[in-house]
Protein backbone atom coordinates (compact mmCIF):
# COMPACT_ATOMS: atom_id res chain seq x y z
CA UNK A 1 0.00 0.00 0.00
CA UNK A 2 1.43 3.40 -0.98
CA UNK A 3 1.65 6.30 1.43
CA UNK A 4 -0.96 8.17 -0.63
CA UNK A 5 -3.49 5.33 -0.52
CA UNK A 6 -2.84 4.93 3.22
CA UNK A 7 -3.70 8.59 3.76
CA UNK A 8 -6.82 8.27 1.59
CA UNK A 9 -7.81 5.14 3.46
CA UNK A 10 -7.36 6.94 6.78
CA UNK A 11 -9.34 9.90 5.50
CA UNK A 12 -12.24 7.75 4.34
CA UNK A 13 -12.16 5.86 7.63
CA UNK A 14 -12.33 9.09 9.62
CA UNK A 15 -15.17 10.21 7.33
CA UNK A 16 -17.00 6.93 7.96
CA UNK A 17 -16.61 7.27 11.72
CA UNK A 18 -17.68 10.91 11.57
CA UNK A 19 -20.89 9.85 9.79
CA UNK A 20 -21.49 7.31 12.56
CA UNK A 21 -21.70 10.15 15.06
CA UNK A 22 -24.76 11.56 13.17
CA UNK A 23 -23.26 15.08 13.20
CA UNK A 24 -26.55 16.96 12.74
CA UNK A 25 -28.37 15.11 15.51
CA UNK A 26 -25.37 15.24 17.84
CA UNK A 27 -24.92 18.93 17.02
CA UNK A 28 -28.53 19.69 17.91
CA UNK A 29 -28.27 17.79 21.20
CA UNK A 30 -25.03 19.59 21.95
CA UNK A 31 -26.79 22.90 21.24
CA UNK A 32 -29.47 21.96 23.79
CA UNK A 33 -26.73 21.23 26.33
CA UNK A 34 -25.12 24.61 25.76
CA UNK A 35 -28.49 26.35 25.93
CA UNK A 36 -29.24 24.52 29.20
CA UNK A 37 -25.92 25.70 30.62
CA UNK A 38 -26.51 29.29 29.53
CA UNK A 39 -30.08 29.23 30.86
CA UNK A 40 -28.58 29.05 34.36
CA UNK A 41 -27.31 32.62 33.88
CA UNK A 42 -23.98 31.57 35.34
CA UNK A 43 -20.77 33.21 34.05
CA UNK A 44 -21.43 31.79 30.59
CA UNK A 45 -18.38 33.26 28.93
CA UNK A 46 -16.00 31.08 30.88
CA UNK A 47 -14.31 29.72 27.76
CA UNK A 48 -12.66 26.80 29.54
CA UNK A 49 -15.97 25.53 30.97
CA UNK A 50 -17.83 26.06 27.68
CA UNK A 51 -15.16 24.15 25.76
CA UNK A 52 -15.08 21.33 28.29
CA UNK A 53 -18.87 21.14 28.39
CA UNK A 54 -18.97 21.00 24.58
CA UNK A 55 -16.24 18.39 24.33
CA UNK A 56 -17.54 16.12 27.10
CA UNK A 57 -21.11 16.25 25.84
CA UNK A 58 -20.09 15.75 22.23
CA UNK A 59 -17.92 12.74 23.05
CA UNK A 60 -20.64 11.18 25.23
CA UNK A 61 -23.34 11.73 22.58
CA UNK A 62 -21.08 10.64 19.71
CA UNK A 63 -19.92 7.56 21.66
CA UNK A 64 -23.48 6.45 22.40
CA UNK A 65 -24.47 7.03 18.77
CA UNK A 66 -21.57 4.95 17.47
CA UNK A 67 -22.49 2.15 19.89
CA UNK A 68 -26.14 2.33 18.77
CA UNK A 69 -25.05 1.99 15.16
CA UNK A 70 -22.82 -0.94 16.07
CA UNK A 71 -25.62 -2.71 17.95
CA UNK A 72 -28.22 -2.06 15.24
CA UNK A 73 -26.02 -2.91 12.25
CA UNK A 74 -28.04 -6.04 11.43
CA UNK A 75 -31.41 -4.26 11.32
CA UNK A 76 -29.92 -1.18 9.63
CA UNK A 77 -28.80 -3.46 6.79
CA UNK A 78 -32.43 -4.51 6.26
CA UNK A 79 -33.84 -0.97 6.03
CA UNK A 80 -33.55 1.14 2.88
CA UNK A 81 -33.11 4.33 4.91
CA UNK A 82 -30.15 3.03 6.89
CA UNK A 83 -28.54 0.36 4.74
CA UNK A 84 -25.94 2.81 3.42
CA UNK A 85 -24.52 3.40 6.89
CA UNK A 86 -20.91 2.36 7.24
CA UNK A 87 -21.86 -0.14 9.93
CA UNK A 88 -24.63 -1.70 7.85
CA UNK A 89 -22.48 -1.89 4.71
CA UNK A 90 -19.62 -3.48 6.58
CA UNK A 91 -17.20 -0.72 5.58
CA UNK A 92 -15.63 -0.77 9.02
CA UNK A 93 -14.48 -3.59 11.25
CA UNK A 94 -17.21 -4.45 13.79
CA UNK A 95 -14.80 -4.97 16.67
CA UNK A 96 -13.07 -1.70 15.88
CA UNK A 97 -16.41 0.18 15.87
CA UNK A 98 -17.23 -1.27 19.28
CA UNK A 99 -13.82 -0.24 20.66
CA UNK A 100 -14.02 3.26 19.16
CA UNK A 101 -17.59 3.72 20.46
CA UNK A 102 -16.61 2.53 23.93
CA UNK A 103 -13.46 4.68 24.08
CA UNK A 104 -15.26 7.82 22.86
CA UNK A 105 -18.05 7.16 25.39
CA UNK A 106 -15.61 6.66 28.26
CA UNK A 107 -13.76 9.85 27.34
CA UNK A 108 -17.03 11.83 27.21
CA UNK A 109 -18.62 10.46 30.37
CA UNK A 110 -15.31 10.42 32.27
CA UNK A 111 -14.60 14.02 31.31
CA UNK A 112 -18.10 14.98 32.48
CA UNK A 113 -17.53 13.31 35.88
CA UNK A 114 -14.18 15.05 36.18
CA UNK A 115 -15.90 18.40 35.69
CA UNK A 116 -18.73 17.87 38.17
CA UNK A 117 -20.16 14.72 39.77
CA UNK A 118 -23.86 15.56 39.28
CA UNK A 119 -23.24 16.75 35.71
CA UNK A 120 -21.33 13.53 35.04
CA UNK A 121 -24.13 11.44 36.52
CA UNK A 122 -26.71 13.03 34.21
CA UNK A 123 -24.46 12.65 31.16
CA UNK A 124 -23.95 9.01 32.13
CA UNK A 125 -27.72 8.57 32.58
CA UNK A 126 -28.23 9.90 29.05
CA UNK A 127 -25.65 7.45 27.69
CA UNK A 128 -27.12 4.54 29.70
CA UNK A 129 -30.74 5.20 28.67
CA UNK A 130 -29.70 5.53 25.03
CA UNK A 131 -27.34 2.59 24.62
CA UNK A 132 -28.51 0.05 27.19
CA UNK A 133 -32.20 0.75 27.86
CA UNK A 134 -33.26 2.02 24.42
CA UNK A 135 -31.04 0.20 21.94
CA UNK A 136 -29.98 -3.02 23.60
CA UNK A 137 -33.01 -3.74 25.78
CA UNK A 138 -36.20 -2.24 24.37
CA UNK A 139 -35.90 -1.15 20.72
CA UNK A 140 -36.65 -4.59 19.30
CA UNK A 141 -39.25 -5.45 21.94
CA UNK A 142 -41.67 -2.55 22.23
CA UNK A 143 -42.65 0.59 20.38
CA UNK A 144 -42.56 2.41 23.74
CA UNK A 145 -38.76 2.26 23.58
CA UNK A 146 -38.87 5.75 22.06
CA UNK A 147 -39.84 7.15 25.46
CA UNK A 148 -36.47 6.00 26.80
CA UNK A 149 -34.73 7.29 23.69
CA UNK A 150 -36.49 10.57 24.40
CA UNK A 151 -35.40 10.63 28.04
CA UNK A 152 -31.85 10.09 26.85
CA UNK A 153 -32.16 12.97 24.36
CA UNK A 154 -33.45 15.21 27.15
CA UNK A 155 -30.38 14.65 29.32
CA UNK A 156 -27.94 17.08 27.59
CA UNK A 157 -30.09 20.14 28.28
CA UNK A 158 -30.61 19.06 31.90
CA UNK A 159 -26.90 18.30 32.24
CA UNK A 160 -25.97 21.71 30.88
CA UNK A 161 -28.28 23.51 33.30
CA UNK A 162 -27.07 21.41 36.23
CA UNK A 163 -23.46 22.27 35.37
CA UNK A 164 -24.40 25.94 35.51
CA UNK A 165 -26.51 25.76 38.67
CA UNK A 166 -24.98 22.90 40.66
CA UNK A 167 -28.39 21.31 41.33
CA UNK A 168 -31.54 20.09 39.57
CA UNK A 169 -34.42 22.58 39.50
CA UNK A 170 -37.92 22.59 38.00
CA UNK A 171 -36.83 24.77 35.09
CA UNK A 172 -34.20 22.21 34.12
CA UNK A 173 -36.82 19.47 34.33
CA UNK A 174 -39.19 21.53 32.16
CA UNK A 175 -36.46 22.11 29.57
CA UNK A 176 -35.75 18.37 29.60
CA UNK A 177 -39.48 17.63 29.31
CA UNK A 178 -39.67 19.98 26.32
CA UNK A 179 -36.93 18.04 24.52
CA UNK A 180 -38.34 14.68 25.64
CA UNK A 181 -41.76 15.54 24.20
CA UNK A 182 -40.24 17.01 21.05
CA UNK A 183 -38.40 13.79 20.20
CA UNK A 184 -41.55 11.73 19.38
CA UNK A 185 -42.42 14.31 16.72
CA UNK A 186 -39.18 13.32 15.11
CA UNK A 187 -39.06 9.58 15.66
CA UNK A 188 -42.76 8.87 15.09
CA UNK A 189 -42.73 10.80 11.81
CA UNK A 190 -39.79 8.67 10.73
CA UNK A 191 -41.60 5.51 11.76
CA UNK A 192 -44.63 6.55 9.67
CA UNK A 193 -42.59 7.50 6.64
CA UNK A 194 -40.45 4.36 6.75
CA UNK A 195 -43.12 2.00 8.12
CA UNK A 196 -42.25 -0.77 5.67
CA UNK A 197 -38.53 -0.52 6.47
CA UNK A 198 -39.20 -1.01 10.17
CA UNK A 199 -41.58 -3.89 9.45
CA UNK A 200 -38.92 -5.56 7.27
CA UNK A 201 -36.41 -5.22 10.08
CA UNK A 202 -38.90 -6.48 12.68
CA UNK A 203 -38.71 -3.33 14.78
CA UNK A 204 -42.03 -2.57 16.55
CA UNK A 205 -43.24 0.98 15.96
CA UNK A 206 -46.27 3.03 16.95
CA UNK A 207 -47.80 2.84 13.44
CA UNK A 208 -47.38 -0.95 13.29
CA UNK A 209 -48.70 -1.42 16.84
CA UNK A 210 -51.46 1.19 17.16
CA UNK A 211 -52.10 2.36 13.59
CA UNK A 212 -51.54 5.67 11.81
CA UNK A 213 -54.37 7.63 13.44
CA UNK A 214 -53.13 6.99 16.97
CA UNK A 215 -49.58 7.78 15.87
CA UNK A 216 -50.66 11.09 14.34
CA UNK A 217 -52.53 11.96 17.52
CA UNK A 218 -49.46 11.07 19.59
CA UNK A 219 -47.30 13.33 17.41
CA UNK A 220 -49.75 16.22 17.65
CA UNK A 221 -50.15 15.83 21.41
CA UNK A 222 -46.44 15.56 22.08
CA UNK A 223 -45.76 18.65 19.91
CA UNK A 224 -48.30 20.71 21.85
CA UNK A 225 -47.00 19.49 25.21
CA UNK A 226 -43.39 20.11 24.12
CA UNK A 227 -44.25 23.71 23.27
CA UNK A 228 -46.11 24.11 26.58
CA UNK A 229 -43.08 22.77 28.50
CA UNK A 230 -40.71 25.11 26.62
CA UNK A 231 -42.93 28.11 27.36
CA UNK A 232 -43.13 27.13 31.06
CA UNK A 233 -39.32 26.79 31.14
CA UNK A 234 -38.89 30.13 29.38
CA UNK A 235 -41.09 31.83 31.98
CA UNK A 236 -39.09 30.09 34.72
CA UNK A 237 -35.83 31.34 33.22
CA UNK A 238 -37.27 34.85 33.34
CA UNK A 239 -37.16 35.27 29.59
CA UNK A 240 -37.66 38.77 28.24
CA UNK A 241 -41.29 39.56 27.31
CA UNK A 242 -40.38 40.12 23.65
CA UNK A 243 -38.67 36.73 23.38
CA UNK A 244 -41.65 35.14 25.14
CA UNK A 245 -43.91 36.67 22.49
CA UNK A 246 -41.70 35.21 19.79
CA UNK A 247 -41.68 31.80 21.45
CA UNK A 248 -45.47 32.04 21.69
CA UNK A 249 -45.71 32.78 17.95
CA UNK A 250 -43.44 29.85 17.06
CA UNK A 251 -45.45 27.63 19.43
CA UNK A 252 -48.68 28.74 17.75
CA UNK A 253 -47.21 27.57 14.43
CA UNK A 254 -46.48 24.21 16.02
CA UNK A 255 -50.03 24.01 17.44
CA UNK A 256 -51.50 24.84 14.02
CA UNK A 257 -49.49 22.12 12.29
CA UNK A 258 -50.36 19.64 15.06
CA UNK A 259 -54.05 20.46 14.58
CA UNK A 260 -53.74 20.05 10.81
CA UNK A 261 -51.96 16.74 11.39
CA UNK A 262 -54.83 15.53 13.59
CA UNK A 263 -57.81 16.71 11.60
CA UNK A 264 -56.55 16.83 8.00
CA UNK A 265 -53.55 14.54 7.86
CA UNK A 266 -51.50 14.43 4.67
CA UNK A 267 -47.97 13.35 3.87
CA UNK A 268 -47.02 17.00 3.37
CA UNK A 269 -48.41 18.17 6.70
CA UNK A 270 -46.65 15.26 8.37
CA UNK A 271 -43.33 16.27 6.80
CA UNK A 272 -44.00 19.93 7.56
CA UNK A 273 -44.56 19.25 11.25
CA UNK A 274 -41.45 17.08 11.38
CA UNK A 275 -39.26 19.83 9.92
CA UNK A 276 -40.98 22.69 11.71
CA UNK A 277 -40.52 20.93 15.06
CA UNK A 278 -36.75 20.90 14.47
CA UNK A 279 -36.74 24.59 13.53
CA UNK A 280 -38.87 25.26 16.63
CA UNK A 281 -36.47 23.51 18.98
CA UNK A 282 -33.43 25.21 17.43
CA UNK A 283 -35.15 28.61 17.66
CA UNK A 284 -36.12 27.95 21.30
CA UNK A 285 -32.49 27.14 22.12
CA UNK A 286 -31.27 30.27 20.31
CA UNK A 287 -33.75 32.39 22.29
CA UNK A 288 -32.50 30.93 25.57
CA UNK A 289 -28.92 31.79 24.56
CA UNK A 290 -29.82 35.28 23.29
CA UNK A 291 -31.68 35.94 26.53
CA UNK A 292 -28.45 35.48 28.48
CA UNK A 293 -26.22 37.35 26.01
Amino acid at each position, binding site marked *: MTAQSKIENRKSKIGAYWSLTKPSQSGLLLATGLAGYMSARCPVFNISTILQLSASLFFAIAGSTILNMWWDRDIDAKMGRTQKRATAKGLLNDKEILIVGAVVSIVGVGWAFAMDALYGLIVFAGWFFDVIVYSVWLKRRTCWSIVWGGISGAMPILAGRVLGLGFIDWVGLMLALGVLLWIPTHTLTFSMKFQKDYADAGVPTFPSTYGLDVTRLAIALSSVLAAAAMIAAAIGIGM*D*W*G*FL*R*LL*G*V*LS*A*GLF*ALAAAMTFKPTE*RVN*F*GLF*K*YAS*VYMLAAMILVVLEVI
Partner: protein
Amino acid sequence: MKPSTRDRALLLLTALLAAYQVSAGIDGFDALPIAAYTVAFGVLLVAALLIFILGFDALDSPIVAIVSTIIPLSLAVGLIHQRAASLRPPYLIFAIVGFLAVALTRSLPVPGKSPTIVLAVTHGIAGLTIFLLPIILSVQGKTQPLFSLVGVGGALIGVGGLLLSFLKTGKPILSRETIMRLFPGLLLLTTTCFVAGFKFGQ
Protein backbone atom coordinates in the same frame (compact mmCIF):
# COMPACT_ATOMS: atom_id res chain seq x y z
CA MET B 1 -42.69 23.86 -6.87
CA LYS B 2 -39.49 23.88 -4.84
CA PRO B 3 -37.95 27.18 -3.72
CA SER B 4 -34.46 27.86 -5.05
CA THR B 5 -31.53 28.70 -2.77
CA ARG B 6 -32.17 32.39 -3.46
CA ASP B 7 -35.83 31.96 -2.55
CA ARG B 8 -34.91 30.18 0.67
CA ALA B 9 -32.46 32.94 1.60
CA LEU B 10 -35.14 35.58 1.01
CA LEU B 11 -37.70 33.61 3.03
CA LEU B 12 -35.24 33.15 5.87
CA LEU B 13 -34.51 36.88 5.92
CA THR B 14 -38.26 37.57 5.96
CA ALA B 15 -38.67 35.20 8.92
CA LEU B 16 -35.78 36.85 10.77
CA LEU B 17 -37.15 40.34 10.20
CA ALA B 18 -40.62 39.28 11.33
CA ALA B 19 -39.05 37.60 14.38
CA TYR B 20 -37.21 40.83 15.20
CA GLN B 21 -40.43 42.81 14.92
CA VAL B 22 -42.33 40.42 17.22
CA SER B 23 -39.58 40.30 19.83
CA ALA B 24 -38.23 43.85 19.83
CA GLY B 25 -39.94 46.06 17.28
CA ILE B 26 -43.21 46.68 19.09
CA ASP B 27 -42.05 47.24 22.66
CA GLY B 28 -43.61 50.21 24.40
CA PHE B 29 -46.94 50.05 22.53
CA ASP B 30 -50.32 49.54 24.23
CA ALA B 31 -51.50 45.99 24.87
CA LEU B 32 -53.88 45.82 21.89
CA PRO B 33 -51.42 47.02 19.22
CA ILE B 34 -48.78 44.68 20.68
CA ALA B 35 -51.22 41.78 20.39
CA ALA B 36 -52.34 42.82 16.89
CA TYR B 37 -48.81 43.31 15.52
CA THR B 38 -47.64 40.09 17.19
CA VAL B 39 -50.37 38.21 15.35
CA ALA B 40 -49.64 39.95 12.02
CA PHE B 41 -45.86 39.49 12.09
CA GLY B 42 -46.27 36.08 13.68
CA VAL B 43 -48.33 34.92 10.71
CA LEU B 44 -45.71 36.38 8.35
CA LEU B 45 -42.96 34.57 10.27
CA VAL B 46 -44.67 31.18 10.35
CA ALA B 47 -45.79 31.53 6.71
CA ALA B 48 -42.22 32.26 5.57
CA LEU B 49 -40.94 29.26 7.54
CA LEU B 50 -43.63 26.95 6.14
CA ILE B 51 -42.97 28.01 2.53
CA PHE B 52 -39.24 27.53 3.27
CA ILE B 53 -39.95 24.00 4.54
CA LEU B 54 -42.82 22.83 2.31
CA GLY B 55 -42.19 24.82 -0.86
CA PHE B 56 -44.65 26.98 -2.79
CA ASP B 57 -47.22 24.17 -2.83
CA ALA B 58 -48.03 25.28 0.72
CA LEU B 59 -49.76 28.27 -0.88
CA ASP B 60 -52.23 25.95 -2.64
CA SER B 61 -53.92 25.04 0.64
CA PRO B 62 -57.48 26.44 0.94
CA ILE B 63 -56.62 27.68 4.43
CA VAL B 64 -54.24 30.26 2.90
CA ALA B 65 -57.17 32.55 2.02
CA ILE B 66 -58.26 32.60 5.67
CA VAL B 67 -54.79 32.91 7.21
CA SER B 68 -53.68 35.62 4.79
CA THR B 69 -56.65 37.75 5.91
CA ILE B 70 -55.19 37.84 9.41
CA ILE B 71 -52.13 39.88 8.35
CA PRO B 72 -53.85 43.02 6.95
CA LEU B 73 -56.66 42.87 9.52
CA SER B 74 -54.28 42.68 12.49
CA LEU B 75 -52.01 45.40 11.13
CA ALA B 76 -54.99 47.65 10.45
CA VAL B 77 -56.42 47.09 13.95
CA GLY B 78 -53.04 47.99 15.48
CA LEU B 79 -52.70 51.13 13.32
CA ILE B 80 -56.25 52.31 14.03
CA HIS B 81 -55.78 51.80 17.76
CA GLN B 82 -52.56 53.82 17.72
CA ARG B 83 -53.46 56.54 15.24
CA ALA B 84 -57.24 56.89 14.97
CA ALA B 85 -58.60 56.51 18.48
CA SER B 86 -62.16 57.52 17.58
CA LEU B 87 -62.46 54.55 15.20
CA ARG B 88 -61.23 51.93 17.66
CA PRO B 89 -64.52 50.17 18.61
CA PRO B 90 -66.14 50.07 15.13
CA TYR B 91 -62.90 48.98 13.47
CA LEU B 92 -62.34 46.21 15.99
CA ILE B 93 -65.90 44.99 15.38
CA PHE B 94 -65.31 45.14 11.60
CA ALA B 95 -62.08 43.15 11.96
CA ILE B 96 -63.69 40.42 14.07
CA VAL B 97 -66.81 40.18 11.89
CA GLY B 98 -64.74 40.35 8.69
CA PHE B 99 -62.41 37.58 9.78
CA LEU B 100 -65.26 35.35 10.93
CA ALA B 101 -67.12 35.98 7.67
CA VAL B 102 -64.05 35.05 5.60
CA ALA B 103 -63.41 31.96 7.74
CA LEU B 104 -67.04 30.80 7.48
CA THR B 105 -67.52 31.47 3.77
CA ARG B 106 -64.22 29.70 3.03
CA SER B 107 -64.90 26.72 5.32
CA LEU B 108 -68.57 26.02 4.57
CA PRO B 109 -70.10 25.32 1.16
CA VAL B 110 -71.51 28.79 0.41
CA PRO B 111 -73.08 29.14 -3.04
CA GLY B 112 -72.62 32.05 -5.45
CA LYS B 113 -70.10 34.85 -5.27
CA SER B 114 -70.53 35.54 -1.53
CA PRO B 115 -67.13 34.09 -0.51
CA THR B 116 -65.33 36.25 -3.11
CA ILE B 117 -67.28 39.38 -2.19
CA VAL B 118 -66.67 38.87 1.56
CA LEU B 119 -62.97 38.30 0.94
CA ALA B 120 -62.67 41.32 -1.38
CA VAL B 121 -64.50 43.68 1.01
CA THR B 122 -62.55 42.56 4.09
CA HIS B 123 -59.18 42.61 2.34
CA GLY B 124 -60.04 45.83 0.55
CA ILE B 125 -60.94 47.82 3.67
CA ALA B 126 -58.03 46.45 5.71
CA GLY B 127 -55.60 46.91 2.80
CA LEU B 128 -56.69 50.51 2.19
CA THR B 129 -56.33 51.26 5.91
CA ILE B 130 -52.74 50.01 5.98
CA PHE B 131 -51.92 51.72 2.69
CA LEU B 132 -53.53 55.12 3.25
CA LEU B 133 -53.38 55.80 6.99
CA PRO B 134 -49.55 55.81 7.37
CA ILE B 135 -49.12 57.88 4.20
CA ILE B 136 -51.76 60.44 5.26
CA LEU B 137 -50.26 60.69 8.74
CA SER B 138 -46.74 61.22 7.42
CA VAL B 139 -47.91 63.78 4.82
CA GLN B 140 -49.74 65.66 7.60
CA GLY B 141 -46.54 65.63 9.63
CA LYS B 142 -48.12 63.68 12.48
CA THR B 143 -45.46 61.01 12.15
CA GLN B 144 -41.95 60.87 10.73
CA PRO B 145 -41.88 60.73 6.89
CA LEU B 146 -40.54 57.16 6.99
CA PHE B 147 -43.77 55.97 8.58
CA SER B 148 -45.16 56.04 5.04
CA LEU B 149 -43.07 52.90 4.46
CA VAL B 150 -45.76 51.03 6.40
CA GLY B 151 -48.18 52.20 3.71
CA VAL B 152 -45.80 51.03 0.99
CA GLY B 153 -45.66 47.64 2.75
CA GLY B 154 -49.46 47.62 2.77
CA ALA B 155 -49.53 48.28 -0.97
CA LEU B 156 -46.98 45.54 -1.64
CA ILE B 157 -48.82 42.94 0.42
CA GLY B 158 -51.96 43.96 -1.45
CA VAL B 159 -50.19 43.31 -4.77
CA GLY B 160 -49.09 39.87 -3.49
CA GLY B 161 -52.61 39.09 -2.32
CA LEU B 162 -54.08 40.12 -5.68
CA LEU B 163 -51.61 38.00 -7.65
CA LEU B 164 -52.39 34.95 -5.51
CA SER B 165 -56.15 35.56 -5.52
CA PHE B 166 -56.35 35.80 -9.32
CA LEU B 167 -54.14 32.73 -9.61
CA LYS B 168 -56.51 30.79 -7.36
CA THR B 169 -59.57 31.88 -9.35
CA GLY B 170 -57.95 30.53 -12.53
CA LYS B 171 -57.49 33.97 -14.13
CA PRO B 172 -53.84 34.70 -13.33
CA ILE B 173 -52.39 38.14 -14.06
CA LEU B 174 -48.94 36.54 -14.36
CA SER B 175 -47.98 32.90 -14.83
CA ARG B 176 -47.73 30.73 -11.71
CA GLU B 177 -43.96 30.37 -12.22
CA THR B 178 -43.48 34.15 -12.43
CA ILE B 179 -45.62 34.75 -9.34
CA MET B 180 -43.72 32.13 -7.35
CA ARG B 181 -40.40 33.58 -8.52
CA LEU B 182 -41.49 37.04 -7.38
CA PHE B 183 -43.21 35.97 -4.16
CA PRO B 184 -40.22 35.55 -1.76
CA GLY B 185 -38.75 38.91 -2.85
CA LEU B 186 -42.14 40.59 -2.51
CA LEU B 187 -42.64 39.07 0.95
CA LEU B 188 -39.20 40.28 2.08
CA LEU B 189 -39.72 43.76 0.65
CA THR B 190 -43.13 43.99 2.33
CA THR B 191 -41.77 42.90 5.70
CA THR B 192 -38.77 45.24 5.36
CA CYS B 193 -41.08 48.18 4.68
CA PHE B 194 -43.26 47.36 7.68
CA VAL B 195 -40.31 46.88 10.03
CA ALA B 196 -38.45 49.98 8.80
CA GLY B 197 -41.64 52.07 8.91
CA PHE B 198 -42.33 51.14 12.53
CA LYS B 199 -38.67 51.48 13.53
CA PHE B 200 -37.86 54.84 11.94
CA GLY B 201 -41.24 56.43 11.35
CA GLN B 202 -42.97 56.57 14.73
